[in-house]
Protein backbone atom coordinates (compact mmCIF):
# COMPACT_ATOMS: atom_id res chain seq x y z
CA UNK A 1 0.00 0.00 0.00
CA UNK A 2 1.10 3.54 -0.77
CA UNK A 3 -0.09 6.99 0.16
CA UNK A 4 -0.04 10.68 -0.70
CA UNK A 5 -1.23 13.76 1.18
CA UNK A 6 -4.53 14.99 -0.25
CA UNK A 7 -3.07 18.48 -0.57
CA UNK A 8 -0.70 17.04 -3.18
CA UNK A 9 -3.34 15.13 -5.11
CA UNK A 10 -3.01 17.42 -8.11
CA UNK A 11 0.58 16.29 -8.50
CA UNK A 12 -0.60 12.69 -8.54
CA UNK A 13 -3.25 13.49 -11.12
CA UNK A 14 -0.68 15.38 -13.17
CA UNK A 15 1.51 12.25 -13.31
CA UNK A 16 -1.50 10.11 -14.14
CA UNK A 17 -2.48 12.46 -16.94
CA UNK A 18 0.94 11.93 -18.45
CA UNK A 19 0.24 8.20 -18.76
CA UNK A 20 -3.12 8.78 -20.41
CA UNK A 21 -6.42 10.58 -20.01
CA UNK A 22 -7.89 10.52 -16.51
CA UNK A 23 -11.63 10.64 -15.92
CA UNK A 24 -12.69 11.63 -12.43
CA UNK A 25 -15.66 13.10 -10.55
CA UNK A 26 -15.42 16.75 -11.51
CA UNK A 27 -17.80 19.57 -10.75
CA UNK A 28 -19.15 21.58 -13.64
CA UNK A 29 -22.05 24.02 -13.34
CA UNK A 30 -22.82 22.74 -9.86
CA UNK A 31 -23.07 19.08 -10.91
CA UNK A 32 -20.51 16.35 -10.44
CA UNK A 33 -19.95 13.85 -13.24
CA UNK A 34 -17.06 11.93 -14.73
CA UNK A 35 -15.11 14.31 -16.97
CA UNK A 36 -11.57 14.32 -18.24
CA UNK A 37 -9.31 15.83 -15.61
CA UNK A 38 -7.04 18.80 -16.27
CA UNK A 39 -5.22 21.04 -13.82
CA UNK A 40 -8.06 23.58 -13.73
CA UNK A 41 -10.72 20.95 -13.06
CA UNK A 42 -12.63 20.98 -9.78
CA UNK A 43 -12.05 17.44 -8.48
CA UNK A 44 -14.78 16.27 -6.09
CA UNK A 45 -13.50 13.03 -4.63
CA UNK A 46 -15.77 13.65 -1.64
CA UNK A 47 -18.99 13.32 -3.64
CA UNK A 48 -20.49 9.87 -3.32
CA UNK A 49 -22.84 9.58 -6.26
CA UNK A 50 -22.12 11.48 -9.44
CA UNK A 51 -25.32 12.48 -11.28
CA UNK A 52 -24.64 10.20 -14.24
CA UNK A 53 -22.85 7.03 -13.27
CA UNK A 54 -19.32 6.04 -14.25
CA UNK A 55 -20.69 3.81 -17.03
CA UNK A 56 -20.45 6.92 -19.23
CA UNK A 57 -16.70 6.28 -19.45
CA UNK A 58 -17.07 2.80 -21.00
CA UNK A 59 -20.51 3.09 -22.57
CA UNK A 60 -20.81 6.79 -23.42
CA UNK A 61 -24.16 8.55 -23.59
CA UNK A 62 -23.56 9.14 -27.30
CA UNK A 63 -20.89 7.77 -29.59
CA UNK A 64 -20.31 7.60 -33.32
CA UNK A 65 -20.35 4.17 -34.93
CA UNK A 66 -19.75 4.94 -38.58
CA UNK A 67 -19.79 7.70 -41.11
CA UNK A 68 -21.51 7.47 -44.51
CA UNK A 69 -20.99 9.46 -47.66
CA UNK A 70 -23.48 9.21 -50.49
CA UNK A 71 -23.10 10.24 -54.11
CA UNK A 72 -25.89 9.41 -56.51
CA UNK A 73 -26.58 5.73 -55.96
CA UNK A 74 -23.22 5.11 -54.33
CA UNK A 75 -22.40 4.94 -50.66
CA UNK A 76 -19.15 4.72 -48.75
CA UNK A 77 -19.01 3.48 -45.19
CA UNK A 78 -16.22 4.43 -42.81
CA UNK A 79 -16.40 2.51 -39.54
CA UNK A 80 -15.36 4.32 -36.38
CA UNK A 81 -12.29 2.76 -34.79
CA UNK A 82 -12.52 1.25 -31.33
CA UNK A 83 -10.41 3.23 -28.83
CA UNK A 84 -6.71 2.47 -28.95
CA UNK A 85 -5.17 4.35 -26.04
CA UNK A 86 -4.89 3.71 -22.33
CA UNK A 87 -6.80 5.80 -19.84
CA UNK A 88 -7.81 5.70 -16.19
CA UNK A 89 -11.05 6.35 -14.39
CA UNK A 90 -10.40 7.57 -10.88
CA UNK A 91 -12.69 7.78 -7.86
CA UNK A 92 -15.20 5.09 -8.82
CA UNK A 93 -17.37 3.95 -5.94
CA UNK A 94 -17.90 0.27 -5.14
CA UNK A 95 -21.38 0.16 -6.67
CA UNK A 96 -20.27 1.66 -9.97
CA UNK A 97 -17.27 -0.71 -10.08
CA UNK A 98 -19.71 -3.60 -9.76
CA UNK A 99 -21.85 -2.15 -12.54
CA UNK A 100 -18.94 -2.67 -14.95
CA UNK A 101 -19.14 -6.43 -14.29
CA UNK A 102 -22.82 -6.35 -15.13
CA UNK A 103 -22.26 -4.36 -18.31
CA UNK A 104 -19.44 -6.77 -19.28
CA UNK A 105 -21.98 -9.59 -19.26
CA UNK A 106 -24.14 -7.61 -21.68
CA UNK A 107 -21.51 -6.17 -23.99
CA UNK A 108 -18.66 -8.69 -23.94
CA UNK A 109 -19.85 -12.21 -23.15
CA UNK A 110 -21.96 -12.75 -26.28
CA UNK A 111 -21.91 -10.83 -29.58
CA UNK A 112 -19.07 -8.67 -28.27
CA UNK A 113 -19.40 -4.92 -28.68
CA UNK A 114 -15.97 -3.90 -29.95
CA UNK A 115 -16.25 -0.27 -28.87
CA UNK A 116 -17.12 -1.18 -25.30
CA UNK A 117 -14.57 -3.98 -25.13
CA UNK A 118 -11.74 -1.74 -26.33
CA UNK A 119 -12.55 0.82 -23.65
CA UNK A 120 -12.67 -1.85 -20.97
CA UNK A 121 -9.31 -3.22 -22.06
CA UNK A 122 -7.65 0.17 -22.18
CA UNK A 123 -9.24 1.57 -19.03
CA UNK A 124 -7.72 1.24 -15.56
CA UNK A 125 -10.38 1.35 -12.85
CA UNK A 126 -9.24 3.20 -9.74
CA UNK A 127 -11.91 2.87 -7.10
CA UNK A 128 -12.49 4.94 -3.99
CA UNK A 129 -13.99 3.73 -0.71
CA UNK A 130 -17.11 5.46 0.64
CA UNK A 131 -16.48 7.10 4.00
CA UNK A 132 -20.03 8.31 4.47
CA UNK A 133 -22.57 6.11 2.72
CA UNK A 134 -25.82 8.00 2.19
CA UNK A 135 -29.43 7.34 3.16
CA UNK A 136 -30.26 6.26 -0.39
CA UNK A 137 -27.47 3.65 -0.57
CA UNK A 138 -28.34 -0.05 -0.46
CA UNK A 139 -25.31 -1.62 -2.12
CA UNK A 140 -25.09 -4.15 0.72
CA UNK A 141 -28.31 -5.70 -0.63
CA UNK A 142 -26.22 -6.86 -3.58
CA UNK A 143 -23.26 -7.99 -1.50
CA UNK A 144 -21.19 -4.94 -2.36
CA UNK A 145 -18.78 -3.64 0.27
CA UNK A 146 -18.51 0.16 0.01
CA UNK A 147 -15.65 0.16 2.51
CA UNK A 148 -13.50 -2.06 0.29
CA UNK A 149 -14.32 -1.38 -3.36
CA UNK A 150 -12.95 -3.63 -6.08
CA UNK A 151 -11.05 -2.25 -9.06
CA UNK A 152 -7.57 -2.40 -10.59
CA UNK A 153 -6.42 -0.02 -7.89
CA UNK A 154 -8.28 0.66 -4.63
CA UNK A 155 -7.99 4.03 -2.95
CA UNK A 156 -9.07 5.23 0.48
CA UNK A 157 -9.26 8.64 2.06
CA UNK A 158 -8.31 8.66 5.73
CA UNK A 159 -8.08 12.13 7.25
CA UNK A 160 -5.73 14.20 5.12
CA UNK A 161 -4.25 11.21 3.27
CA UNK A 162 -5.14 9.22 0.17
CA UNK A 163 -4.14 5.55 0.38
CA UNK A 164 -3.43 3.68 -2.84
CA UNK A 165 -3.49 -0.11 -3.30
CA UNK A 166 -2.82 -1.67 -6.71
CA UNK A 167 -4.60 -5.04 -6.90
CA UNK A 168 -4.63 -6.39 -10.43
CA UNK A 169 -1.67 -6.71 -12.80
CA UNK A 170 -3.14 -3.89 -14.80
CA UNK A 171 -3.27 -1.75 -11.67
CA UNK A 172 0.27 -2.66 -10.65
CA UNK A 173 1.65 -1.82 -14.09
CA UNK A 174 -0.13 1.49 -14.02
CA UNK A 175 1.20 2.34 -10.56
CA UNK A 176 4.73 1.42 -11.58
CA UNK A 177 4.59 4.12 -14.25
CA UNK A 178 3.87 6.79 -11.67
CA UNK A 179 7.47 6.86 -10.42
CA UNK A 180 7.92 7.80 -6.80
CA UNK A 181 5.15 10.29 -6.37
CA UNK A 182 3.51 7.90 -3.88
CA UNK A 183 5.25 6.90 -0.67
CA UNK A 184 5.06 3.53 1.08
CA UNK A 185 2.45 3.13 3.80
CA UNK A 186 1.10 0.46 6.09
CA UNK A 187 -2.52 -0.68 6.10
CA UNK A 188 -3.49 -0.09 9.72
CA UNK A 189 -5.17 3.29 9.14
CA UNK A 190 -7.18 1.94 6.23
CA UNK A 191 -8.26 -1.17 8.13
CA UNK A 192 -9.46 0.96 11.04
CA UNK A 193 -11.41 3.14 8.62
CA UNK A 194 -13.07 0.10 7.07
CA UNK A 195 -14.50 -0.86 10.46
CA UNK A 196 -15.91 2.63 10.96
CA UNK A 197 -17.56 2.54 7.53
CA UNK A 198 -19.06 -0.87 8.19
CA UNK A 199 -20.63 0.46 11.37
CA UNK A 200 -22.25 3.27 9.37
CA UNK A 201 -23.50 0.81 6.74
CA UNK A 202 -25.20 -1.19 9.50
CA UNK A 203 -27.30 1.80 10.43
CA UNK A 204 -28.41 2.87 6.94
CA UNK A 205 -32.20 3.16 6.52
CA UNK A 206 -32.25 0.84 3.47
CA UNK A 207 -29.97 -1.82 4.93
CA UNK A 208 -32.79 -4.38 5.19
CA UNK A 209 -33.89 -4.17 1.57
CA UNK A 210 -33.80 -7.69 0.22
CA UNK A 211 -33.95 -9.27 -3.22
CA UNK A 212 -34.93 -12.61 -1.78
CA UNK A 213 -38.37 -12.68 -3.36
CA UNK A 214 -36.94 -12.06 -6.84
CA UNK A 215 -34.56 -13.72 -9.25
CA UNK A 216 -34.50 -16.21 -12.09
CA UNK A 217 -37.59 -18.15 -13.12
CA UNK A 218 -40.12 -15.73 -11.65
CA UNK A 219 -41.48 -14.05 -14.77
CA UNK A 220 -44.97 -15.47 -14.55
CA UNK A 221 -45.11 -14.98 -10.79
CA UNK A 222 -44.64 -11.22 -11.04
CA UNK A 223 -45.72 -10.21 -14.53
CA UNK A 224 -49.45 -9.94 -13.90
CA UNK A 225 -49.29 -8.68 -10.33
CA UNK A 226 -51.94 -5.99 -9.72
CA UNK A 227 -49.42 -3.81 -7.82
CA UNK A 228 -47.79 -2.65 -11.09
CA UNK A 229 -50.74 -0.40 -11.84
CA UNK A 230 -50.58 1.50 -8.59
CA UNK A 231 -46.78 1.63 -8.50
CA UNK A 232 -46.62 3.13 -11.98
CA UNK A 233 -49.59 5.44 -11.68
CA UNK A 234 -47.62 8.64 -11.07
CA UNK A 235 -44.66 7.76 -13.33
CA UNK A 236 -44.32 10.51 -15.92
CA UNK A 237 -42.08 8.45 -18.18
CA UNK A 238 -39.25 10.96 -17.96
CA UNK A 239 -36.58 8.25 -18.16
CA UNK A 240 -34.44 9.88 -15.45
CA UNK A 241 -34.11 6.59 -13.59
CA UNK A 242 -32.67 4.89 -16.67
CA UNK A 243 -30.25 7.70 -17.56
CA UNK A 244 -28.71 7.90 -14.10
CA UNK A 245 -28.58 4.13 -13.65
CA UNK A 246 -25.15 2.47 -13.91
CA UNK A 247 -26.59 -0.83 -15.15
CA UNK A 248 -29.18 0.31 -17.68
CA UNK A 249 -28.00 -0.82 -21.10
CA UNK A 250 -30.68 0.17 -23.62
CA UNK A 251 -29.62 2.21 -26.60
CA UNK A 252 -30.86 3.72 -29.83
CA UNK A 253 -29.06 3.90 -33.17
CA UNK A 254 -29.67 6.98 -35.30
CA UNK A 255 -28.30 8.90 -38.27
CA UNK A 256 -27.38 12.58 -38.26
CA UNK A 257 -26.70 14.52 -41.43
CA UNK A 258 -23.85 16.98 -40.77
CA UNK A 259 -24.07 18.41 -44.28
CA UNK A 260 -20.72 16.86 -45.14
CA UNK A 261 -21.45 13.29 -44.14
CA UNK A 262 -24.03 11.21 -42.36
CA UNK A 263 -22.96 10.11 -38.91
CA UNK A 264 -24.44 6.96 -37.49
CA UNK A 265 -24.37 7.19 -33.72
CA UNK A 266 -25.74 5.33 -30.78
CA UNK A 267 -27.11 6.95 -27.67
CA UNK A 268 -28.67 5.80 -24.44
CA UNK A 269 -32.36 5.18 -24.69
CA UNK A 270 -35.05 4.30 -22.18
CA UNK A 271 -37.62 1.53 -21.93
CA UNK A 272 -39.65 4.11 -19.99
CA UNK A 273 -40.36 6.02 -23.23
CA UNK A 274 -43.59 5.46 -25.12
CA UNK A 275 -41.98 5.18 -28.56
CA UNK A 276 -39.30 2.71 -27.46
CA UNK A 277 -41.25 -0.28 -28.80
CA UNK A 278 -43.48 1.58 -31.31
CA UNK A 279 -43.89 -0.38 -34.56
CA UNK A 280 -45.75 -0.06 -37.83
CA UNK A 281 -48.60 -2.23 -36.58
CA UNK A 282 -48.84 -0.75 -33.08
CA UNK A 283 -47.15 -0.69 -29.72
CA UNK A 284 -46.96 -3.83 -27.57
CA UNK A 285 -46.42 -1.69 -24.45
CA UNK A 286 -49.36 0.64 -24.69
CA UNK A 287 -49.37 2.34 -21.29
CA UNK A 288 -46.76 3.55 -18.81
CA UNK A 289 -47.63 0.62 -16.55
CA UNK A 290 -46.17 -1.83 -19.08
CA UNK A 291 -43.05 0.27 -19.62
CA UNK A 292 -42.54 0.71 -15.88
CA UNK A 293 -42.97 -3.00 -15.34
CA UNK A 294 -40.39 -3.72 -18.05
CA UNK A 295 -37.68 -1.70 -16.28
CA UNK A 296 -38.07 -3.43 -12.95
CA UNK A 297 -38.83 -6.92 -14.28
CA UNK A 298 -35.66 -6.67 -16.35
CA UNK A 299 -33.53 -5.81 -13.35
CA UNK A 300 -35.12 -8.21 -10.89
CA UNK A 301 -36.17 -11.21 -12.99
CA UNK A 302 -35.18 -11.21 -16.67
CA UNK A 303 -31.52 -10.30 -16.15
CA UNK A 304 -31.10 -12.89 -13.36
CA UNK A 305 -32.73 -15.44 -15.67
CA UNK A 306 -29.96 -14.95 -18.21
CA UNK A 307 -27.08 -14.37 -15.79
CA UNK A 308 -27.06 -17.09 -13.15
CA UNK A 309 -29.31 -15.22 -10.78
CA UNK A 310 -27.33 -11.98 -10.74
CA UNK A 311 -29.46 -8.82 -10.50
CA UNK A 312 -29.09 -5.82 -12.77
CA UNK A 313 -28.98 -3.32 -9.92
CA UNK A 314 -26.10 -2.35 -7.66
CA UNK A 315 -28.03 -0.36 -5.08
CA UNK A 316 -26.36 2.94 -5.90
CA UNK A 317 -29.56 4.74 -4.97
CA UNK A 318 -29.44 7.20 -7.86
CA UNK A 319 -32.98 6.38 -8.95
CA UNK A 320 -34.05 6.68 -5.32
CA UNK A 321 -32.62 10.17 -5.10
CA UNK A 322 -33.53 11.46 -8.56
CA UNK A 323 -37.02 10.26 -9.52
CA UNK A 324 -39.29 13.33 -9.61
CA UNK A 325 -42.22 11.34 -8.22
CA UNK A 326 -40.13 9.48 -5.64
CA UNK A 327 -40.80 6.06 -7.13
CA UNK A 328 -37.91 3.62 -7.29
CA UNK A 329 -36.66 0.07 -7.25
CA UNK A 330 -36.70 -0.09 -3.45
CA UNK A 331 -40.40 0.72 -3.30
CA UNK A 332 -41.06 -1.80 -6.07
CA UNK A 333 -39.19 -4.53 -4.22
CA UNK A 334 -41.01 -3.78 -1.00
CA UNK A 335 -44.45 -3.63 -2.62
CA UNK A 336 -44.04 -6.84 -4.63
CA UNK A 337 -41.69 -8.79 -2.42
CA UNK A 338 -43.74 -8.18 0.69
CA UNK A 339 -41.07 -6.57 2.79
Amino acid at each position, binding site marked *: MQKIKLENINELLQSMAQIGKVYAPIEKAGQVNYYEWNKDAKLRLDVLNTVKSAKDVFFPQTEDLASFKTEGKE*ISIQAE*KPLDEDFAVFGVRACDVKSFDILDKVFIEENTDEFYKARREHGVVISHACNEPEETCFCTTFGIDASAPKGDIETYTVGDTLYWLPVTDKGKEYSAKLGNILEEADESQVNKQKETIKAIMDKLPLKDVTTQAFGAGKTMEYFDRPEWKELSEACIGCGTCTYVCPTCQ*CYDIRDYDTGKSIERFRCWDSCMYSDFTMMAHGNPRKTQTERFRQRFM*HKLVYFPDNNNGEFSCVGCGRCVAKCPISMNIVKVMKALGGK
Partner: protein
Amino acid sequence: MCNCANGNIDKLIPQLAVITDIRTDTPDVKTFRVVGVDGKINFDHKPGQCAMLTLPGIGEAMFSITSSPTNTEYKEFSIKRCGTLTDALHSVEVGQQIGIRGPYGKPFPVDTEFKGKNLLFIGGGIGIAPLRSVINYARDNRDDYGKIDVLYGSRSKEDLVDYEEMTNEWVKSRDFDLHLTIDREQEGWDGHVGFVPNYLKELKFDTNRIAIICGPPIMIKFCLAALIEMGFDKTQVYTTLELKMKCGIGKCGRCNIGSKYVCKDGPVFRCDELDEIPNEY
Protein backbone atom coordinates in the same frame (compact mmCIF):
# COMPACT_ATOMS: atom_id res chain seq x y z
CA MET B 1 -7.26 4.42 -43.76
CA CYS B 2 -7.84 0.80 -42.93
CA ASN B 3 -9.96 0.07 -39.89
CA CYS B 4 -8.69 -3.43 -39.46
CA ALA B 5 -5.25 -2.61 -38.06
CA ASN B 6 -6.39 -2.39 -34.47
CA GLY B 7 -9.51 -4.02 -33.17
CA ASN B 8 -12.25 -5.80 -35.03
CA ILE B 9 -15.01 -4.18 -37.00
CA ASP B 10 -18.03 -3.97 -34.74
CA LYS B 11 -21.15 -6.00 -35.49
CA LEU B 12 -23.21 -2.83 -35.74
CA ILE B 13 -21.32 -1.60 -38.80
CA PRO B 14 -23.09 -2.44 -42.05
CA GLN B 15 -21.39 -3.89 -45.12
CA LEU B 16 -21.89 -2.38 -48.53
CA ALA B 17 -24.34 -4.00 -50.95
CA VAL B 18 -26.15 -3.09 -54.14
CA ILE B 19 -29.73 -3.60 -55.28
CA THR B 20 -29.60 -5.51 -58.56
CA ASP B 21 -33.31 -6.04 -59.19
CA ILE B 22 -36.62 -4.68 -57.95
CA ARG B 23 -39.91 -6.52 -58.48
CA THR B 24 -43.27 -4.97 -57.69
CA ASP B 25 -45.28 -7.72 -55.99
CA THR B 26 -48.33 -5.88 -54.75
CA PRO B 27 -49.42 -2.22 -54.51
CA ASP B 28 -47.35 -1.89 -51.30
CA VAL B 29 -44.78 -4.70 -51.44
CA LYS B 30 -41.63 -4.76 -53.54
CA THR B 31 -39.01 -7.49 -53.58
CA PHE B 32 -35.39 -6.38 -53.73
CA ARG B 33 -32.44 -8.46 -54.91
CA VAL B 34 -29.26 -7.62 -53.03
CA VAL B 35 -25.61 -8.62 -53.56
CA GLY B 36 -22.32 -7.37 -52.12
CA VAL B 37 -20.47 -4.75 -54.15
CA ASP B 38 -18.03 -7.49 -55.20
CA GLY B 39 -20.89 -9.39 -56.84
CA LYS B 40 -21.00 -12.05 -54.13
CA ILE B 41 -23.54 -12.42 -51.33
CA ASN B 42 -22.49 -10.57 -48.18
CA PHE B 43 -22.98 -13.56 -45.86
CA ASP B 44 -24.62 -16.99 -45.65
CA HIS B 45 -27.88 -17.46 -43.79
CA LYS B 46 -30.39 -20.09 -42.75
CA PRO B 47 -34.16 -20.03 -43.45
CA GLY B 48 -35.94 -17.69 -41.05
CA GLN B 49 -32.98 -15.43 -40.37
CA CYS B 50 -33.10 -11.68 -40.93
CA ALA B 51 -30.82 -8.81 -41.85
CA MET B 52 -30.65 -5.10 -41.10
CA LEU B 53 -30.86 -2.89 -44.17
CA THR B 54 -29.67 0.72 -44.14
CA LEU B 55 -30.20 3.77 -46.26
CA PRO B 56 -27.80 6.36 -44.80
CA GLY B 57 -29.58 9.33 -43.28
CA ILE B 58 -32.95 7.57 -43.44
CA GLY B 59 -32.37 4.70 -41.06
CA GLU B 60 -32.08 1.00 -40.58
CA ALA B 61 -34.65 -1.78 -40.10
CA MET B 62 -34.85 -5.54 -39.80
CA PHE B 63 -36.18 -7.63 -42.70
CA SER B 64 -36.59 -11.34 -43.22
CA ILE B 65 -34.31 -12.82 -45.83
CA THR B 66 -36.98 -14.21 -48.12
CA SER B 67 -34.64 -16.01 -50.52
CA SER B 68 -33.51 -19.54 -49.72
CA PRO B 69 -29.93 -20.26 -48.60
CA THR B 70 -29.79 -22.62 -51.57
CA ASN B 71 -29.73 -19.48 -53.68
CA THR B 72 -26.09 -18.45 -53.37
CA GLU B 73 -26.20 -15.72 -56.02
CA TYR B 74 -28.17 -13.04 -54.23
CA LYS B 75 -30.43 -12.36 -51.29
CA GLU B 76 -34.00 -11.19 -51.59
CA PHE B 77 -36.12 -9.04 -49.29
CA SER B 78 -39.86 -8.49 -49.67
CA ILE B 79 -40.59 -5.11 -48.16
CA LYS B 80 -43.93 -3.56 -47.36
CA ARG B 81 -44.18 0.21 -47.56
CA CYS B 82 -45.27 1.48 -44.17
CA GLY B 83 -42.88 4.09 -42.79
CA THR B 84 -39.80 6.21 -43.27
CA LEU B 85 -37.22 3.66 -44.37
CA THR B 86 -39.60 1.44 -46.31
CA ASP B 87 -40.99 4.49 -48.17
CA ALA B 88 -37.46 5.46 -49.12
CA LEU B 89 -36.59 1.90 -50.21
CA HIS B 90 -39.68 1.81 -52.42
CA SER B 91 -38.47 4.89 -54.27
CA VAL B 92 -34.92 3.70 -55.09
CA GLU B 93 -33.84 2.31 -58.45
CA VAL B 94 -31.75 -0.68 -59.47
CA GLY B 95 -28.08 0.07 -58.85
CA GLN B 96 -28.73 1.82 -55.53
CA GLN B 97 -26.19 0.86 -52.88
CA ILE B 98 -27.36 0.07 -49.37
CA GLY B 99 -25.90 -1.05 -46.06
CA ILE B 100 -26.56 -4.58 -44.88
CA ARG B 101 -25.65 -6.46 -41.68
CA GLY B 102 -26.55 -9.88 -40.41
CA PRO B 103 -27.62 -12.61 -40.44
CA TYR B 104 -29.63 -12.30 -37.25
CA GLY B 105 -31.80 -14.61 -35.24
CA LYS B 106 -32.46 -18.26 -34.68
CA PRO B 107 -33.52 -19.98 -37.91
CA PHE B 108 -36.25 -22.56 -38.45
CA PRO B 109 -34.92 -26.03 -37.52
CA VAL B 110 -34.97 -27.16 -41.16
CA ASP B 111 -32.16 -29.65 -40.72
CA THR B 112 -33.39 -31.14 -37.45
CA GLU B 113 -37.02 -31.01 -36.28
CA PHE B 114 -38.42 -30.37 -39.77
CA LYS B 115 -36.47 -33.14 -41.46
CA GLY B 116 -38.51 -36.00 -42.86
CA LYS B 117 -41.79 -34.38 -41.78
CA ASN B 118 -44.86 -33.21 -43.64
CA LEU B 119 -44.89 -29.42 -43.57
CA LEU B 120 -47.88 -27.07 -43.41
CA PHE B 121 -47.05 -23.41 -44.02
CA ILE B 122 -49.67 -20.85 -43.00
CA GLY B 123 -49.01 -17.28 -44.12
CA GLY B 124 -50.81 -13.97 -44.17
CA GLY B 125 -49.82 -10.86 -46.16
CA ILE B 126 -46.15 -9.91 -45.87
CA GLY B 127 -45.80 -12.82 -43.40
CA ILE B 128 -45.00 -14.99 -46.41
CA ALA B 129 -41.51 -13.40 -46.52
CA PRO B 130 -39.80 -15.68 -43.96
CA LEU B 131 -41.88 -18.69 -45.08
CA ARG B 132 -40.74 -18.37 -48.69
CA SER B 133 -37.16 -18.97 -47.58
CA VAL B 134 -38.11 -22.26 -45.90
CA ILE B 135 -40.47 -23.35 -48.68
CA ASN B 136 -37.83 -22.89 -51.37
CA TYR B 137 -35.23 -24.55 -49.18
CA ALA B 138 -37.54 -27.56 -48.79
CA ARG B 139 -38.27 -27.59 -52.55
CA ASP B 140 -34.54 -27.57 -53.27
CA ASN B 141 -34.00 -30.43 -50.82
CA ARG B 142 -37.24 -32.16 -51.77
CA ASP B 143 -36.25 -35.65 -50.61
CA ASP B 144 -35.63 -34.43 -47.05
CA TYR B 145 -39.27 -33.53 -46.41
CA GLY B 146 -42.69 -35.14 -46.77
CA LYS B 147 -45.85 -33.57 -48.15
CA ILE B 148 -45.80 -29.76 -48.35
CA ASP B 149 -48.97 -27.66 -48.01
CA VAL B 150 -48.96 -23.88 -48.27
CA LEU B 151 -52.00 -21.98 -47.06
CA TYR B 152 -51.61 -18.32 -47.92
CA GLY B 153 -54.03 -15.44 -47.73
CA SER B 154 -54.16 -11.69 -48.28
CA ARG B 155 -56.75 -8.93 -48.49
CA SER B 156 -57.16 -9.23 -52.26
CA LYS B 157 -55.65 -10.99 -55.27
CA GLU B 158 -53.39 -7.99 -55.86
CA ASP B 159 -52.06 -8.26 -52.30
CA LEU B 160 -50.78 -11.82 -52.66
CA VAL B 161 -46.99 -11.51 -52.50
CA ASP B 162 -45.00 -13.95 -54.69
CA TYR B 163 -48.20 -14.91 -56.59
CA GLU B 164 -46.31 -15.55 -59.84
CA GLU B 165 -43.71 -17.81 -58.24
CA MET B 166 -46.34 -19.72 -56.29
CA THR B 167 -48.63 -20.38 -59.21
CA ASN B 168 -45.93 -20.94 -61.85
CA GLU B 169 -43.23 -22.79 -59.93
CA TRP B 170 -44.28 -24.01 -56.50
CA VAL B 171 -47.36 -25.89 -57.72
CA LYS B 172 -45.16 -27.95 -60.05
CA SER B 173 -43.22 -29.40 -57.10
CA ARG B 174 -43.77 -33.00 -56.14
CA ASP B 175 -46.24 -33.61 -53.29
CA PHE B 176 -47.05 -29.93 -53.03
CA ASP B 177 -50.44 -28.27 -52.55
CA LEU B 178 -51.08 -24.55 -52.63
CA HIS B 179 -54.23 -23.21 -50.93
CA LEU B 180 -54.77 -19.52 -51.64
CA THR B 181 -57.47 -17.35 -50.13
CA ILE B 182 -58.47 -13.69 -50.18
CA ASP B 183 -60.54 -11.82 -47.61
CA ARG B 184 -63.43 -10.70 -49.87
CA GLU B 185 -65.06 -11.74 -53.17
CA GLN B 186 -63.37 -10.16 -56.14
CA GLU B 187 -63.96 -10.17 -59.89
CA GLY B 188 -61.58 -12.53 -61.70
CA TRP B 189 -60.97 -14.65 -58.59
CA ASP B 190 -62.43 -18.12 -58.56
CA GLY B 191 -60.33 -19.39 -55.65
CA HIS B 192 -61.24 -19.56 -51.99
CA VAL B 193 -62.63 -16.52 -50.19
CA GLY B 194 -62.37 -16.08 -46.42
CA PHE B 195 -59.91 -15.43 -43.62
CA VAL B 196 -56.89 -17.69 -43.21
CA PRO B 197 -57.87 -19.23 -39.82
CA ASN B 198 -61.33 -20.20 -41.15
CA TYR B 199 -59.88 -21.72 -44.31
CA LEU B 200 -57.42 -23.62 -42.14
CA LYS B 201 -60.31 -25.24 -40.26
CA GLU B 202 -62.15 -26.05 -43.50
CA LEU B 203 -59.08 -27.81 -44.92
CA LYS B 204 -59.13 -30.33 -42.04
CA PHE B 205 -55.45 -31.26 -42.03
CA ASP B 206 -54.49 -34.28 -39.97
CA THR B 207 -51.91 -33.75 -37.24
CA ASN B 208 -49.17 -35.75 -38.92
CA ARG B 209 -47.23 -32.62 -39.80
CA ILE B 210 -45.36 -29.57 -38.55
CA ALA B 211 -47.18 -26.26 -38.91
CA ILE B 212 -45.38 -22.96 -39.44
CA ILE B 213 -47.39 -19.76 -39.06
CA CYS B 214 -46.30 -16.24 -40.10
CA GLY B 215 -48.45 -13.17 -40.41
CA PRO B 216 -50.13 -10.42 -38.43
CA PRO B 217 -50.32 -11.16 -34.67
CA ILE B 218 -54.09 -11.59 -34.73
CA MET B 219 -53.87 -14.16 -37.54
CA ILE B 220 -51.17 -16.08 -35.68
CA LYS B 221 -53.35 -16.15 -32.58
CA PHE B 222 -56.44 -17.53 -34.36
CA CYS B 223 -54.46 -20.02 -36.45
CA LEU B 224 -52.72 -21.40 -33.38
CA ALA B 225 -56.09 -21.78 -31.66
CA ALA B 226 -57.49 -23.54 -34.73
CA LEU B 227 -54.54 -25.94 -34.87
CA ILE B 228 -54.90 -26.80 -31.18
CA GLU B 229 -58.59 -27.44 -31.81
CA MET B 230 -57.62 -29.73 -34.69
CA GLY B 231 -55.51 -31.76 -32.27
CA PHE B 232 -52.04 -30.33 -32.88
CA ASP B 233 -49.62 -30.15 -29.99
CA LYS B 234 -47.87 -26.82 -29.42
CA THR B 235 -44.53 -28.54 -29.99
CA GLN B 236 -45.62 -29.18 -33.60
CA VAL B 237 -46.25 -25.50 -34.32
CA TYR B 238 -43.69 -22.80 -35.09
CA THR B 239 -44.16 -19.09 -35.52
CA THR B 240 -42.17 -15.86 -35.67
CA LEU B 241 -42.52 -12.80 -33.45
CA GLU B 242 -41.97 -9.25 -34.56
CA LEU B 243 -40.91 -6.57 -32.11
CA LYS B 244 -39.12 -3.29 -32.68
CA MET B 245 -35.40 -3.87 -33.26
CA LYS B 246 -32.34 -1.65 -33.37
CA CYS B 247 -29.20 -3.67 -32.70
CA GLY B 248 -30.14 -7.21 -33.73
CA ILE B 249 -27.70 -8.72 -31.23
CA GLY B 250 -29.49 -8.65 -27.88
CA LYS B 251 -28.11 -5.43 -26.42
CA CYS B 252 -30.21 -2.37 -27.24
CA GLY B 253 -33.12 -3.78 -25.23
CA ARG B 254 -35.94 -3.03 -27.69
CA CYS B 255 -37.02 -6.54 -28.54
CA ASN B 256 -36.73 -7.82 -24.97
CA ILE B 257 -39.79 -9.76 -23.89
CA GLY B 258 -39.56 -11.69 -20.66
CA SER B 259 -36.10 -13.22 -20.56
CA LYS B 260 -35.89 -13.47 -24.34
CA TYR B 261 -34.51 -11.13 -26.94
CA VAL B 262 -36.51 -11.73 -30.11
CA CYS B 263 -33.55 -10.64 -32.28
CA LYS B 264 -31.26 -13.41 -31.01
CA ASP B 265 -33.48 -15.96 -29.21
CA GLY B 266 -36.13 -15.60 -31.97
CA PRO B 267 -37.68 -14.50 -34.22
CA VAL B 268 -38.55 -18.18 -34.68
CA PHE B 269 -40.26 -19.75 -31.66
CA ARG B 270 -41.87 -23.13 -31.14
CA CYS B 271 -45.32 -22.37 -29.76
CA ASP B 272 -44.74 -24.16 -26.46
CA GLU B 273 -41.82 -21.77 -25.87
CA LEU B 274 -44.25 -18.87 -26.06
CA ASP B 275 -45.88 -20.09 -22.86
CA GLU B 276 -42.70 -19.18 -21.02
CA ILE B 277 -42.73 -15.55 -22.07
CA PRO B 278 -45.31 -12.96 -21.09
CA ASN B 279 -47.95 -12.05 -23.64
CA GLU B 280 -46.44 -8.72 -24.58
CA TYR B 281 -46.28 -9.06 -28.39
